[in-house]
């Protein structure tokens, strides 16, 4: 095995495209090193992207926020402006692992690891986040939900690296929230999770909504029907009931020791409705 630490994205892409064997991109390593230790992956080459210029920064731009692929989740939690604009994304990112893991893990890594139970991914999908992907043919920008295609699988071609996660600037009266169910109180993997992102008008009616569910299908589920149910409402009980049903119906979960199909369906509805209420309150709705 070889370890390389390029200083530019061009070099990183070149190293990957010129390598004949298995290549692993290393950001925080909190998934990769565990998988290597367990013998699940034996890369011939590790490309450490942390020394690439700009990848360890959060930039606030005219369009919103750009979060470099090597920024640890702990740094997201310490970024006051990001926390204020996207509290749901930050709370999801900060739920990944312990303080020790927070010092290393990244949202780009969480996305590319492609676990159906990834905590930050439903929140990012609800937020309408985009991934800026660098590759041999140049940069492309895609919605984050286009990256994972199944457990452990992504749509990234050889030589492609997610370099930034992009979040839009917030209009007034907007809020997001993320909730998950785990069997213990902290530091576990989601059995079911829900991210909700809402924008309201001056009277408190929802003008746009995005609802995403985690751990209930091979990839994150964007529940398109939910927007139709929520838009125009003020989140009255009848609306929340419809939202819960739409979310339960959108699940395609597995039965395993951590949760049955029936349990996951039911809890997905409950969490979606609670996350919607939290996002609504954060947007200033009453």
């Amino acid at each position, binding site marked *: 095995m*070889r370890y390389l*630490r390029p200083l530019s994205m061009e070099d990183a892409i070149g190293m990957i495209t010129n390598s004949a064997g298995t290549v692993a991109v290393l950001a*925080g390593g909190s998934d990769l*090193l565990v998988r290597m230790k367990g013998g699940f992956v034996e890369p011939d080459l590790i490309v450490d992207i942390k020394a690439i210029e700009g990848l360890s920064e959060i930039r606030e731009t005219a369009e919103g926020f750009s979060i470099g692929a090597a920024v640890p989740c*702990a740094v997201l939690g310490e970024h006051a402006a990001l926390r204020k604009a996207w509290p749901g994304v930050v709370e999801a990112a900060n739920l990944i692992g312990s303080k020790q*893991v927070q010092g290393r893990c990244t949202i780009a890594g969480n996305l590319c690891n492609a676990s159906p139970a990834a905590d930050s991914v439903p929140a990012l999908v609800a937020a309408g986040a985009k991934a800026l992907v660098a590759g041999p043919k140049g940069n492309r920008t895609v919605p984050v939900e286009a990256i994972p295609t199944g457990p452990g699988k992504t749509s990234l071609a050889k030589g492609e690296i997610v370099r930034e996660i992009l979040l839009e600037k917030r209009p007034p009266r907007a809020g997001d929230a993320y909730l998950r169910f785990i069997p213990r109180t902290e530091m576990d993997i989601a059995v079911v999770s829900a991210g909700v992102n809402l924008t309201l008008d001056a009277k408190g009616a929802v003008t746009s909504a995005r609802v995403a569910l985690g751990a209930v299908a091979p990839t994150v589920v964007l529940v398109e029907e939910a927007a139709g149910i929520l838009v125009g409402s003020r989140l009255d009980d009848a609306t929340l009931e419809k939202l819960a049903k739409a979310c339960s119906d959108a699940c395609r979960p597995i039965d395993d020791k951590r949760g049955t199909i029936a349990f996951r369906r039911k809890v997905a509805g409950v969490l979606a409705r609670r996350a919607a209420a939290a996002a609504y309150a954060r947007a200033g709705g009453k």
Partner: protein
Amino acid sequence: MAGLAVSTTINGDSVEYLCQPDETLLDVLRDRLGLTGAKEGCGTGDCGACSIILDGRLVCSCLVLGAEAEGRRVETIEGMADGDVLHPLQQKFIEHAALQCGICTPGFLIAAKDLLARNPDPTEEEIRFGLAGNLCRCTGYDKIVRAVQDAASVMRAA
């Protein structure tokens, strides 16, 4: 195989070593540099026994490659006492008998040091949350929490 040449700073000292590309920083510290304070409990980032501070961030050294330490600043338990003078956290762990077998203790001390550096006056809940990445299988957590609270008050008064 000769391995990769790495130059880094450990507890304020410049250190150079050779390591294999798949070797963790924990293995480098223990097996190449003789710094055996950090322990391997799980090797998968769950137990915190290998905690160190890397460029000011608390991390599990089992989840860091030795090669990644190039040009960075590493703090381990070996740098915690000032010569023969124990750090207040070390002193209070002894006074409160906040350890039995001691395997988890270096990790708890490093994590507690990082916690108090960020929050000098944590509530009990903040201490329990902040140390939740460190597992102890014999003492239990109450004595550890009391020791951290006591050390925090000593450090605030200093």
